[in-house]
C-alpha cells in the first residue's frame, strides 16, 4: 500500500510539472490573444473557488451559500493592499484620496529595489503576501460569522450565510468607508496576471507567464485542500457529513470541526476572490451577488458533490462552455444555421440552464459523483484483470 502511495504521488508530481510546463509553452506559442487563455485563467480561479466550496458543501455537508461574500472580502483585501501609491488618488478620486497608504509590492521594493530581478521579487512577494492576507481576512470573518450561524442546519444555514454575504456586500458599498473601500466604486490599477509577464528593457514581452500564475496558486491551494481532506480532519469532516449524531458519538467535536471547515473553505474562497480580482483587473462589490454563489454551487453539482477532480473538470468545462464554445449561440447565424428569431442574445444562458437542470434531475451524481480520477483507472485495471482470469 505504501509503495503504491509513493508511486501515486510521484506520478502526480510529474503531472503537475507537465501541466505547468504545458501552460507556459502554450502561452508562448499560441497567439496570446486567443480566447484559450482567458478561459484557462478564469477556469483556474474558478476551480479553486469551487473546490473550496466543495470542501464545505460536499465533504463536510454544510450547505453554505456565503461563498461570494468571502470572495468579496478576499478581493477587496488584495486590492486595497496592492494598489500602487501613485495611482491611489486617481482610483479614490471620489473620496479625495485613500486613507490607507500601504502597498505590499512597494514595501518590498524598498528592500529589493524596483527594477530588474529585485522588482520581480518584490512583485512576487508583495502579491503573495496580499493573497495570504486576503485568505486570512476571509477566514477571520468566517470565524466570526460561524460562531452564531454554524449552529443552524441545512437550509437555515444556507439562507443565513446567504444573508451574511449580502450584508458584507452592503458594508463594502457604504460610502462612510469610502476612503478605504472606495465606497461602491471600482478598485483598479493593482497588479494583475499580466504584470507577471517578463519584459525586456524596451517593454516588449519576452516570456508570458500570466496564465501560469493562477495555475500555480490554484494548484498549490487545491493540493493543500486535498492534503486536508486525506488527513484525520478530513475523515472527521466526512463523518459529520454522513451522520452528525454518530460522528459526535465517535468523539468528534462537531462545532470545532464545522468551524474549522468553514474557516478553511473561506480562506481559499478569499484567495480565489483575490485571484478573480487579478483576472478581471478591477474589483467592485456589486459583482459578488448571490447569483455568483449559485453559479459556483451549480458547478459543484455538475462536477459531483464530494469530488475534487470533478470540481476541477466542471469548473474548466463550465467556463469554457459559457465564455467561449457556446458564445456563438447568442448570435445569428450559428453553425451556419440562419434563424435570427432563435439565435439571439440570451440563448446561450437558456441552453446552459437547461443543461444544468438535466444534470440536477437525471445525473444527480454529476460528472464524477464522489469518485476521483484515479478511481476510474483502478476500476479499469480490475476489470482487465477479471477478464484475464
Amino acid at each position, binding site marked *: 500500500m505504501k509503495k503504491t502511495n509513493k508511486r501515486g504521488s510521484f506520478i502526480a508530481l510529474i503531472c503537475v510539472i507537465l501541466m505547468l510546463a504545458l501552460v507556459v509553452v502554450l502561452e508562448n506559442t499560441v497567439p496570446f490573444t486567443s480566447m484559450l487563455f482567458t478561459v484557462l485563467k478564469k477556469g483556474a480561479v474558478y476551480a479553486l473557488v469551487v473546490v473550496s466550496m466543495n470542501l464545505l458543501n460536499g465533504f463536510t455537508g454544510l*450547505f453554505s451559500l456565503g461563498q461570494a461574500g468571502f470572495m468579496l472580502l478576499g478581493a477587496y483585501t488584495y486590492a486595497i493592499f496592492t494598489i500602487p501609491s501613485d495611482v491611489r488618488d486617481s482610483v479614490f478620486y471620489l473620496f479625495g484620496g485613500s486613507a490607507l497608504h500601504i502597498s505590499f509590492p512597494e514595501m518590498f521594493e524598498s528592500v529589493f529595489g524596483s527594477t530588474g530581478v529585485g522588482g520581480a521579487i518584490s512583485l512576487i512577494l508583495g502579491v503573495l503576501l496580499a493573497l495570504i492576507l486576503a485568505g486570512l481576512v476571509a477566514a477571520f470573518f468566517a470565524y466570526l460569522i460561524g460562531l452564531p450561524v454554524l449552529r*443552524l442546519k441545512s437550509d*437555515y444555514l444556507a439562507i*443565513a450565510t446567504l*444573508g451574511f454575504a449580502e450584508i458584507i456586500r452592503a*458594508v463594502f458599498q457604504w460610502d462612510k468607508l469610502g476612503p478605504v473601500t472606495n465606497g461602491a466604486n471600482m478598485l483598479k490599477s493593482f497588479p494583475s496576471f499580466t504584470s507577471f509577464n517578463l519584459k525586456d528593457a524596451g517593454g516588449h514581452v519576452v516570456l508570458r507567464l500570466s496564465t501560469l500564475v493562477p495555475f500555480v496558486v490554484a494548484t498549490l491551494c487545491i493540493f493543500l485542500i486535498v492534503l486536508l481532506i486525506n488527513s484525520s480532519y478530513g475523515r472527521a469532516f466526512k463523518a459529520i457529513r454522513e451522520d452528525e449524531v454518530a460522528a459526535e458519538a465517535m468523539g468528534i467535536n462537531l462545532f470545532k470541526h464545522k468551524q474549522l471547515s468553514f474557516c478553511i473553505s473561506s480562506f481559499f474562497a478569499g484567495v480565489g476572490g483575490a485571484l478573480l480580482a487579478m483576472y478581471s483587473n478591477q474589483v467592485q462589490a456589486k459583482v459578488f451577488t448571490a447569483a455568483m454563489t449559485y453559479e459556483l454551487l451549480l458547478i459543484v453539482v455538475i462536477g459531483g458533490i464530494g469530488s475534487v477532480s470533478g470540481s476541477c473538470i466542471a469548473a474548466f468545462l463550465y467556463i469554457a462552455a459559457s465564455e467561449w464554445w457556446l458564445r456563438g449561440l447568442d448570435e445569428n447565424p450559428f453553425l451556419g444555421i440562419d434563424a435570427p428569431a432563435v439565435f439571439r442574445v*440570451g440563448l446561450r*444562458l437558456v441552453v446552459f*440552464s437547461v443543461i444544468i437542470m438535466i444534470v*440536477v434531475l437525471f445525473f444527480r451524481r454529476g460528472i464524477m459523483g464522489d469518485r476521483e480520477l484515479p478511481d476510474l483507472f483502478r476500476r479499469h485495471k480490475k476489470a482487465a484483470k477479471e477478464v484475464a482470469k
Partner: protein
Amino acid sequence: MEFAISILLSGISVGGQYALIAIGYTLVYGILRLINFAHGDVFMAAGLMMVYLSASLPLSVSVPLMVILTVALGFAIERIAYKPLRSAPRMSVMISAIGVSYLLQNLATYVTGGLPQMYPSIPGLSASVTIMGATTKWVTVVTPVLVVILVVALTQLIDHTKVGMAMRAVSRDFETAQLMGIKINSVISATFIIGSFLAAVGSVLYFTNYRSIVPLSGAMPGLKAFVAAVFGGIGSIPGAVIGAFLIGICETIIKGSNWTVFSDAFTFALLIVVLVTKPTGLFGEKATDKV
C-alpha cells in the same frame, strides 16, 4: 407629517405585496421543508406574461389568463423539478430550486431580449389618490385590503376543507399522512397552485406600483418574502403576513433615512437575528429540526 404618511403608505403596500409571495414560501416550506428559490421568479414570470398577454388581449381576458398560466407554471415546476427528487436529500431539491430560478431568469432575458418591459396600467389601480396630503396610487390602498381578504379566505380553506385538512396533516408528518391514505402528490400540487395563484395576484399589485420588469425583478422580493416567512414563523400564514408588513415598513423607513445602503442588508440581519435567537419566528410552532 406628509413625509411620514407617504413612507408608511409605501411601506404598507410593499409589505402587502411581500405578504402574498411569503404565503407561497411558507406553505411550501411547511409541507416539503424546501426553500422554493424559484418562487420569486414565478412572480416575475407572472409579470412578464401579463405584459405580453395585455399587448394583444383586453384586460378582462388577460388578467385571468395570466393567473391561470402562472398557476400552471407553478404546477409544472413542482412536477418536473421537485417531484422526481422526492426521496433525494433536501440539499438536492434546493439545488434544483436554484436551477429552476436560474432557468426562469435566463428565459426571461432571452424572451425580453434584455429590455425592461413596461407593465400595462390597470384602470382603477393605477389612478392617483391623495391621503392626508400624500399622493399615491390606488393600488397602495387596495393592497392591504386585498391581502386581508385573501388571507381570511385561505385560512378558511385550510381550516375547513378536505384539502386544507390534508395539507395540515402532511405538514405535521409526511410519512404518516401518506400511510393514512392522503394522496401526497395532489396535496403538494395544491400547495404550489395556491402559492402561484397568490404570487400572480401579488405580481399585479407589485408591478402596477413598480412598472418596469427586468429578469431580476423577482429575486429580491422573493428573498425578502422568504425572510418575512421565517420572521413570522415558517408554516404560519398570519405570521408570514405580519412579518411581511413589518419588513416592508422597516425597509421603506430605512430608505427614507440616511442608511439607504443597508435597506436590503437590514432584512438579512433581521433574518439572522431571528434564526439565532428564536428560530420558530413570531408565530411558529415548536422547534423541530431547524436547530
